[in-house]
């Protein structure tokens, strides 16, 4: 949308504002001013901007809204732990484990997830959605899950507990003169595992992969968000890997059989070895589950509560017994948790003189992954080399993962050829700037991440579904995608991005920006406007 359209739109609003006055006599008090909580520009330049244009659009309804960008930590504490907010604008990154629809359908919308640390901070409750969310999470056959997921999406869209504003792409850059054969992965772009193992690197064979964030630690038990997986996933293997499209691919488990809905038999791939030469056994897999459960590994704590027992019915078979059937178990646990060598972790933490494995530095990690740990100079670089004995050995000689001081420094290093790939998102403005540099490929890669505006459904006026539906029609989605996110995004609607072709419900369509329609919805629900065009609540509400 260009500036002229915007002005035209604004003119149209004034006209409709006049039309609404008629209802004023039936309406009550003015709708209270509300604010949009979000992160500061320092944290994400886009968020305060988006909050501002959304606030501006809300004004077209005669309703005062202001943007309130605050420190990110402070914000999420208020929202997630205290539910103390009015509207919350957040970016939900499309990490690989969120390709499974369980996160977007159940975690964000099930009423039991409205709790401290839960993602249903909006306080949304719809019995039908609760039922559908539970059903999809317990159906072990992927095709059976599709129907409830599609229906839930549509119901959620009707109810608008929050509004999906934009589906973003992952803006990343690499050198085409150095790297060949990158495999973009949903949610990880060209910085993910499939590029790590499949890329061919010119020169000495080592990819210089850069990030603006330092590697935090190399302790697979202590991970607490999926960003920490990126380096570990080169060194450590998992039972499954999420493929480039997000579907689990058998990995350390060469086969899986559902004995019944609550019993999974895994065949452990033969011939695998740890980097120190010892064989990877079913014992190690059982140990990994028991260890994570015993020490309450934070990231897996909730999911592992559902594991009743891990047994070894035969030398290369692992049987996992679940308390309840769990569809996302494969992607959220088996394709996420890293396998630990029993002979190394057995005595930890006692043998290293600490009381908790979360505090174990694991400075020299030994895994069974396609890359062996070489060295780590904290704050500057981590080097891993190809583990040739792996069943899926990398095509490159290794990866040197470099930490840069800022996005700008990283972009400059790619421009100069000192760095050949960005590990994660490089800011859209920089990608835009270096996209025409010779031998640099800088562009957006598909992701299911999205900008989401949650409403606190427990407070006025957001407790009224009609009000939320009206908001859905005034959101400046085009402006957000094209002007603020520089075209590396598309207007959003359903909580599941169309990128996830299998799970997305195509019946959910992006609504056009239509202030008149929004006003009609409000008028029909009993709202009115005073002489100054100020929005009034329905009488008695």
């Amino acid at each position: 949308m260009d500036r002229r359209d915007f002005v035209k739109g604004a003119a149209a609003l004034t006209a409709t504002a006049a039309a609404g006055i008629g209802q004023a006599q039936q309406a009550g008090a003015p709708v209270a001013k509300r604010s949009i909580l979000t992160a500061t520009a320092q944290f994400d330049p886009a968020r305060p901007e988006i909050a501002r244009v959304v606030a501006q659009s809300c004004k077209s309804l005669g309703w005062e809204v202001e943007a309130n960008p605050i420190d990110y930590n402070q914000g999420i504490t208020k929202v997630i732990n205290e539910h103390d907010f009015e509207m919350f604008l957040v970016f939900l990154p499309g990490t690989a484990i969120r390709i499974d629809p369980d996160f977007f359908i159940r975690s964000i919308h099930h009423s039991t997830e409205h709790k401290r640390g839960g993602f249903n901070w909006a306080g949304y409750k719809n019995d039908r959605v609760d039922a559908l969310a539970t059903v999809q999470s317990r159906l072990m056959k992927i095709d059976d899950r599709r129907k409830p997921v599609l229906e839930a999406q549509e119901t959620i869209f009707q109810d608008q507990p929050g509004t999906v504003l934009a589906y973003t792409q992952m803006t990343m850059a690499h050198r085409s003169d150095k790297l060949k054969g990158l495999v973009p992965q949903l949610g990880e772009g060209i910085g993910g595992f499939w590029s790590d193992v499949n890329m061919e690197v010119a020169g000495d064979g080592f990819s210089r992969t850069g990030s603006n964030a330092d590697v935090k630690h190399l302790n697979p038990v202590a991970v607490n968000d999926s960003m920490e997986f990126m380096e570990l996933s080169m060194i450590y293997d998992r039972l499954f890997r999420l493929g480039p499209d997000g579907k689990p691919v058998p990995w350390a488990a060469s086969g899986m059989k559902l004995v019944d809905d609550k019993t999974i038999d895994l065949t452990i791939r033969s011939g695998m070895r740890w980097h120190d030469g010892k064989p990877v056994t079913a014992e190690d897999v059982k140990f990994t589950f028991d260890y994570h459960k015993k020490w309450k590994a934070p990231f897996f704590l909730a999911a592992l509560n559902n594991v009743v027992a891990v047994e070894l019915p035969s030398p290369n078979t692992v049987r996992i017994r679940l308390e309840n059937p769990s569809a996302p178990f494969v992607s959220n646990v088996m394709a996420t948790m890293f396998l630990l060598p029993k002979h190394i972790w057995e005595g930890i933490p006692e043998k290293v003189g600490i009381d908790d494995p979360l505090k174990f530095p694991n400075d020299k990690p030994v895994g069974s992954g396609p890359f062996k740990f070489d060295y780590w100079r904290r704050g500057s670089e981590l080097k891993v080399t190809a583990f040739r004995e792996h069943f899926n050995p990398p095509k490159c000689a290794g990866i040197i993962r470099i930490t840069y001081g800022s996005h700008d420094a990283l972009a400059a290093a790619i421009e100069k050829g000192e760095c050949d790939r960005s590990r994660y998102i490089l800011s859209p403005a920089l990608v835009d700037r270096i996209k025409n540099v010779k031998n640099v490929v800088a562009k957006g890669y598909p992701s299911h991440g999205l900008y989401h505006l949650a409403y606190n459904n427990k407070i006025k006026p957001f407790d009224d579904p009609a009000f939320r539906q009206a908001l859905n029609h005034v959101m400046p989605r085009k402006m957000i995608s094209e002007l603020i996110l520089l075209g590396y995004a598309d207007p959003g609607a359903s909580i599941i991005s169309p990128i996830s072709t299998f799970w997305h419900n195509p019946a959910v369509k992006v609504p056009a920006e239509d202030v008149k329609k929004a006003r009609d919805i409000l008028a029909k629900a009993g709202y009115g406007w005073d002489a100054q065009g100020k929005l009034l609540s329905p009488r008695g509400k």
Partner: protein
Amino acid sequence: MTAYILRRLLSALLTLLGVAVILFVLFRMMPGDPTAQIISPALDAAAQDRLKQAFGLDLPVWQQFIIYLKNTATLEWGRSFTTGQPVASLLGGWLVNTLLLMSTGLVLAISLGVVLGIFMAARRGGPLDNGATVLGLVFQASPPFVIGILLLMGLSYQFEIFPSGGMFTPGADPGNTWALITSKDFLEHLVLPTLTITALYLSTPMLVMRDSMLEVLGSDFVEFARAKGLSPVRVLFRHAARNALLAVVTVSSLILGFAIGGQIVIETVFSWPGMGKAMVDAAMQHDYPVAQAAFFLMAAVVIGLNFITDLSYSLLDPRIRLGTT
């Protein structure tokens, strides 16, 4: 002399204790709960509690304070919230990197400043005096990142003489530390940030030296030395400069204090894995143990340098030593 040293030492230690207490209070007054940063929102309540307990955040504040004081006194500082590493070992590495960069830059800035100051005073009002004054003020007035980025644009991106950042070329063999920091690769990486620091901090010692020289050059004993028939160079360096140096020693400790603050920006611009960058990261991530220890260490460096300055005064000027009794 001993009494003087002891008195200075005691006041330095008291200041450090004050810093320690302020840091503890300040970090807890920062907006936002540390658990929100170190504990991902993807975790449910039980997992959040699990992490709080692992890092002692479930304890009452007064208990945390006692543990903190104990850790500070023993220089242990506990473990980083974000990395799980012992803080002491983390900081050790960063401090070395920072000192390598900062000491090179400041030694260069101060020695160059002193020498330039002497010549500027000797030829007061001449082209060197005027030119260096203007240039020095321009450098001092510009924000640190501007000089750094201009140097990067010119000497790294445009002419590709120097690397764009970091301490080493990625993948350089990480032999022992000594071999690394004497390598050509390291020295090449050191040039641009060092030049930035030199340019930034040159003007103060230079101008102070110049002014102090002018004052000394006008005094009677210099007149007398000239009258004795000593060579002008000898008068300038042996007699005048030595006396003028005292003022530079004073400001040097102040410069160090500023330099530590400026270090944060320079390390970010040049991706230098040092203390400044680590401090910012730790503060942003609410990694209390690391942030507190880093700030404390920085304060200790400043206080320690002040202490050394005080002592060196008494060596350069015996009057100060006598005046304390």
